[in-house]
């Protein structure tokens, strides 16, 4: 079956709210109904077919072509199915996602995967701040699922992360893992300042030695049994995280943030 494909005709000046174009909402609609759906674009509402050329009919697999950085809320609260995006995406990609998969063959803006509950979000390029974080004012970020970023991530990765896994092949910005409640963040590249600031529980797994705040305490070097299992769980990913060469079980453990309850940990590959 051919995927339901939205090809952007022209790049509008205003940001576009793409949240209506998710698999579970489009499954029951006819082609004409999909074309007639209204998308918020700035203060206007535009028909889908004003912005996109629509082709294909399999709503379980949506492809967005010619995407650019002003298409916000792609895959918002996605509840099954798959969305492929060719190009960059705007803010809030995969926000509150419940099930399914989103693949972005480009970069993403701020709040990608924020408050997502399950499913898989893959971003080939870079991402903005608050990857997998909580929306401003909210106290709980991502609650499950997996986010894979092949490029670099901005600041506040996994802010208020509750559960789930964030994998970053590149670098992460400042305040990575800030206010983490639990969950796992793994960064193959470098991390910025104030790593794990205010984290309560959870694991930040690093390949490179970080700059640590004074509120993280050295617990020494250890061989941890759960790490091989964690790496095995990445085997299905198309990523260096799935490679046996990058797996390890020997780490230096730092506990913190001691200014919080201090049950979190930063594990650095030895």
């Amino acid at each position, binding site marked *: 079956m051919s995927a339901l494909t939205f090809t952007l005709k022209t790049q509008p000046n205003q940001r576009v709210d793409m949240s209506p174009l998710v698999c579970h909402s489009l499954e029951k609609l006819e082609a004409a109904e999909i074309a007639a759906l209204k998308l918020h674009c700035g203060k206007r509402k535009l028909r889908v077919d004003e912005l996109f050329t629509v082709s294909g009919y399999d709503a379980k697999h949506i492809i967005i072509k010619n995407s650019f950085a002003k298409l916000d809320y792609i895959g918002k609260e996605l509840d099954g199915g798959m969305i492929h995006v060719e190009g960059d995406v705007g803010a809030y990609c995969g926000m509150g996602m419940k099930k399914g998969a989103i693949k972005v063959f480009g970069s993403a803006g701020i709040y990608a995967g924020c408050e997502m509950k399950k499913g898989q979000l893959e971003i080939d390029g870079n991402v903005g701040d608050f990857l997998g974080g909580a929306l401003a004012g909210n106290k709980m970020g991502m609650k499950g699922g997996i986010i894979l970023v092949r490029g670099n991530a901005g600041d506040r990765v996994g802010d208020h992360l509750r559960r789930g896994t964030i994998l970053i092949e590149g670098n992460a910005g400042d305040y990575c893992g800030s206010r983490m409640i639990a969950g796992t963040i793994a960064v193959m590249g470098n991390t910025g300042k104030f790593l794990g600031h205010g984290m309560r529980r959870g*694991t930040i797994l690093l390949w490179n030695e970080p700059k640590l705040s004074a509120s993280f305490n050295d617990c020494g070097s250890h061989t941890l049994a759960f790490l*091989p299992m964690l790496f*095995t769980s990445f085997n299905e990913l198309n990523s260096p995280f799935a490679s046996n060469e990058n797996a390890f079980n020997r780490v230096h453990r730092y506990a913190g943030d001691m200014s919080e309850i201090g049950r979190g940990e930063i594990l650095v590959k030895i």
Partner: protein
Amino acid sequence: MIINGVTIDATFAEAFPMKGTRAIITAQNEKWAMIAAQAMTGFATSVIACGCEAGIERVLTPDETPDGRPGVAIMIFAMGGKGLAKQLETRAGQCVLTSPTSALFAGIDGGIRIPLGKNLRYFGDGFQTSKVISGKRYWRIPVMDGEFLAEATTGQVDAIGGGNFLVLAQSQPQALAACEAAIEEMRKIPNVIMPFPGGVVRSGSKVGSKYKTLGASTNDAFCPTLKGSTKKTDLSPDIESVMEIVIDGLTKDDIDKAMRVGIQAVCDLGAENGIMRISAGNYGGKLGPFHFHLQEIMA
């Protein structure tokens, strides 16, 4: 029915419904996985006084275990779900948590979930942490040799306990040799354990006793020294020793298979090695609803 000179009695073993579970113990090497497994399945020969019946199912290679280390699969059976959960937890806490380098994982994915590491985590005194990996929750409990990793729950399923057969031989060494041969073959069958010491029980019991406080007593019909003293003897003059193999398994099919290979191994030794008969613990329907007819199994 006669196989290689061994008479297969036209009788059946009676078995009863139980609840069963499996756990996987891993360690730095097979030696320490086995030590933990032996400790966990110790004093678990019969529900009559042990609270459960447990045994080692088989040794697992590193590629069969969740953490890629050598391991051992153990199975525990009890009369009810509550009893099973209690036995599992206390045994895991006292025998596996304490055993150097060990880790403990679920051996059954389906079924009713019962705690494995879920409550053991409190040993961590607040320093324990959990990790959800591929949808399964694991507890990391800090201990003096590093970290004890335990899966939160394992599966409890309906099972069958008390499948059995008796080996009747001309001498004690011949009975034991036949049982050893049977056990070696039966241990290759998955989903079953033979919970008695070395898989063999020499003190098979009957239901009831002349003493009111006892629910079970010696199976005098099969005691060779009582051939002249009990009216119920089931032994001919040439039988000097009887030993029993008891089997607990997840399904009737599993026990059928184990009994078949076990009896076959005994019959392979045959009459020339002093094996006279194969019989079974048949208590007239007092014990349980599952009947394993020996001749049907060997047909």
